[in-house]
């Protein structure tokens, strides 16, 4: 499997990573090599193997539906870059 420059740009955009144009060929080669390395797994016959969703072979523990968290807004907002009227402020997003 070989990733081209546009695939690298697309992946970088999805991950919101700014990458230097000149570094794209290196990323493309490195990522392709990683995919090829993992690709070896496709050669293994897994017909008898049950799919594994988690390495711990246990079920999820459940929590009773009872309020256990108190309001700590002031503490959380003390470390936020900007707040106003109880809201976290972020650079304007318009759809």
């Amino acid at each position, binding site marked *: 499997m070989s990733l081209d420059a546009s695939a690298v740009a697309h992946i970088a955009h999805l991950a919101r990573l700014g990458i230097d144009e000149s570094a794209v060929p290196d990323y493309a080669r490195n990522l392709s090599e990683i995919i090829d390395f993992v690709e070896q797994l496709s050669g293994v016959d897994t017909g008898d193997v049950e799919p594994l*969703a988690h390495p711990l072979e246990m079920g999820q*523990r459940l929590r*009773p539906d009872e309020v256990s968290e108190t309001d*700590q*807004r002031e503490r959380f907002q003390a470390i936020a870059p900007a707040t106003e009227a*109880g809201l976290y402020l972020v650079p304007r997003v318009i759809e």
Partner: protein
Amino acid sequence: MEWEPVIGLEIHAQLATRTKIFSGASTAYGAEPNTQACAVDLGLPGVLPVLNEQAVRFAVRLGLALDAEVAGRSVFARKNYFYPDLPKGYQISQYELPVVGTGHLDIDLEDGTTKRIGVTRAHLEEDAGKSLHEGFEAMTGIDLNRAGTPLLEIVSEPDLRSAKEAVAYMKKLHSLVRYLGICDGNMQEGSFRCDANVSVRPKGESGFGTRAELKNLNSFRFVERAINHEIERQIELIEDGGEVVQETRLYDADKNETRSMRTKEEANDYRYFPDPDLLPLEVTRSLIEEIRGELPELPDAKKARFEADYGLPAYDAGVLTASRELADYYEATVTAADGEAKLAANWVMGELSGALNKAGLDITDSPVSAADLGGLLCRINDETISGKIAKDVFEAMWNGEGDADTVIESKGLKQVTDTGAIEAMVDEAIAANPTQLEQYRAGKTKLLGFFVGQVMKASGGKANPQQVNEILRRKLDG
């Protein structure tokens, strides 16, 4: 060419748990911004999600009610995208293995037939926060109180063929989640939200056309209008030689139009993968059976019972079982009215529903209790009052003037059934109207109504109408 719309709905039902799906923060609506957003909801480093048992039980309830497969093992996955109201950069959802599999819901169509609509799946996920774009200079305000609220996303098969069918399905599901007590169904507060996938194809064809996804359909009326509008837009586009683009469109209720939001990202752009913070969810057979045992009587079963036990027409049974609260009220009324089922149906659907609508009240806020309404119906039934006077008594009860007996007593509305007293009033009416008497006896028998009116007026509406009729006829003819 004749076109056939193909519609599938994705409905997000906010589950009526006390706390969030993965944290112990409260889900109560309307709190001050960010006072119910804890470290887990904010996605602070080092926190771990712990699944809410009640959210799981609610999902299983719906699965059983849809006659669906409840998965013994399901998996939570991360859906990755960036938006400021999603602090972790991913939404915890379910992808390949949802908790509820294939099921179905039967809807009633306008022609009286029923249609079975397939349900593809229902999965658990967390809600995002809210973005407030107005009122900040070049900034957006974020309230994360809603972040982490449990949602059940219920996906239908593309089995719906008109906007009306889509609304019927949505209403049925709305009624069902409220019967089950898993969602309050409050659409203004966003507890029950709908996206619609709409496409058109030439009638008779079995393949699907390209679909557009409509968002922001937050009332039954908007769903119908937005879908109809979108169907027309697509047909016009195709007939003009254009092509439908797969995209998300936002419905604007003020302009009654849909407009493109963004070209819909391909599903694999979300880069779903199993969430390593959560183990697979296991739902045992015994838990499923325990939850099955807790299910209330569901709308279809209740409707059938109302028809069979109370002898109600299908329409009445449908109206009275539309919500569990209305059905409960009706049944309590029938009991209090000594089993007068049809009379109770007429009053609950007529006088009471009319008054509630006018006042903008829910059945649970009715100023007249079911016991008191039943009491009123008893007085009609034992002829203490006529049906006409009963409406006045009802109005007084609505205004808080006491139960039926109190109102009848205090206003002196008890029906006059004493033959002697009615005879005296009849004699008086005849004596006072000699001209009409002469005309009546000359063959103009329609004047009976005039005399009945005179007697009823003299009695203040309280004379038993049947007796008045009988006595009048005997005296006039005599």
